[in-house]
């Protein structure tokens, strides 16, 4: 099966993460269909999912003085989708850390309060370093469960990988062993979507845009023919192909980082008061061939243009 036959990221003019259409087994061979039916009773079928990333709930600063407003708008946009996405994946940095006692827990509660408004019922997360690095994931687990796991959905195998909670940009030998055991059960033609926080390849190591043992993870995945990796962390849209996998980064919902191929320093792009959600948003995946991934900015029409910040103030969006 051609990888493009399984993952089609369909184009909708939205700015809310990545809207991804998946046709997992409609063109797959009968072996995959019957394998999934035998193992989990699922009937493989097309579906859509949305990827959101880096909402940094609790962040406050000049790069974005509007707090959670872009995140909340994204939830509204997703709730307006028809059909509804069956899955919503969060690829880390759900919250911004705080060392004030109790404050980080409040931020996780706020995150859950916002996402509780989602109509989609299957919402999955992986941690970012701002969620889980300082306490090795202890608080994160209380709110969201394990930091790495796997599940099947309509003929696609999803793998959530944790490359943050050891405090370093690593997955670690224990998790890689788990990954090997998990994958061993699946045929090599199984459609696989990995979602994680940091890139698994060396995008910009001096900005810590890498996973030190990411190459080991990709080696474990290499025998599988249909692997897509969704990640966050870099606060910008990016597409990258390694030998055996395609990697897509979703934009942030708080602020953007500059182009790593031209910028010397990793500094957030300046807040644009006339266009407050500029550079925030998503990657848009289009159901075309060859696979087309479009970068869609979270430009909220009612809050953009010359009066953007004033409009937000009037509507109470800064509150």
């Amino acid at each position, binding site marked *: 099966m051609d990888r493009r036959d399984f993952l089609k990221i369909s184009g909708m003019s939205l700015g809310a993460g990545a809207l991804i259409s998946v046709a997992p087994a409609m063109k797959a061979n009968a072996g995959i269909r019957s394998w999934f039916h035998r193992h989990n009773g699922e009937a493989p079928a097309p579906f859509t999912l949305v990827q959101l990333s880096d909402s940094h709930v609790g962040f406050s600063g000049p790069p974005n003085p509007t707090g959670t407003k872009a995140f909340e708008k994204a939830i509204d946009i997703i709730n307006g989708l028809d059909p509804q996405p069956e899955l919503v994946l969060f690829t880390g940095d759900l919250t911004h*850390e705080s060392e004030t006692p109790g404050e980080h827990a409040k931020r996780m509660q706020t995150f859950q309060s916002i996402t509780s408004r989602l109509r989609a019922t299957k919402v999955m997360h992986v941690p970012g*370093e701002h969620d889980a690095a300082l306490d090795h994931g202890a608080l994160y687990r209380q709110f969201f469960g394990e930091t790495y796991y796997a599940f099947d959905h309509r003929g696609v195998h999803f793998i959530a990988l944790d490359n943050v909670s050891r*405090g*370093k940009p690593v997955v670690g030998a224990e998790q890689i062993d788990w990954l090997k055991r998990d994958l061993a059960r699946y045929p090599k033609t199984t459609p696989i979507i990995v979602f994680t926080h940091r890139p698994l390849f060396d995008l910009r*190591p*001096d900005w*810590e845009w890498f996973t030190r043992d990411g190459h080991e993870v990709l080696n474990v995945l290499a025998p599988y023919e249909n692997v897509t990796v969704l990640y966050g962390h870099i606060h910008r849209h990016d597409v990258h192909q390694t030998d055996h996998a395609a990697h897509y980064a979703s934009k942030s919902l708080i602020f953007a980082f500059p182009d790593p191929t031209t910028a010397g*320093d990793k500094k957030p792009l300046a807040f644009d008061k006339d266009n407050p959600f500029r550079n925030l948003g998503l990657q848009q995946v289009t159901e075309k061939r060859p696979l087309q991934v479009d970068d869609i900015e979270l430009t909220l029409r009612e809050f953009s243009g010359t009066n953007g910040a004033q409009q937000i103030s009037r509507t109470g969006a800064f509150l």
Partner: protein
Amino acid sequence: MKYLMLAILLWAQLGVPQPRVIEISAKRFEFTPNQITIKKGETVTLRVTAEDRDHGFLQEDLGIDLDLTPGKVAEITITPQTAGRFTAICDTFCGSGHGNMKMVINVVE
């Protein structure tokens, strides 16, 4: 015998050139100094100390990978064979600002 061993150690200290030692301190979110210069082929020892909490000190191209813990001196001896500008980073997340905790190791001809 004891005196013979001491004499050998003393001879070793006197006879073998010791690498230059560069002291580096780490605290949120900076290394001090934030830039050092080494000659290509020069052997230097980097002695790195964390002042406030755990940090990392990573520069893979130069073979540097240290875990820093307050109260302990982490040390590595390197002999760079390639000239260039190498950025070492803290790779142990230490809070907001961690992402820009780095220093430059210039290796010159």
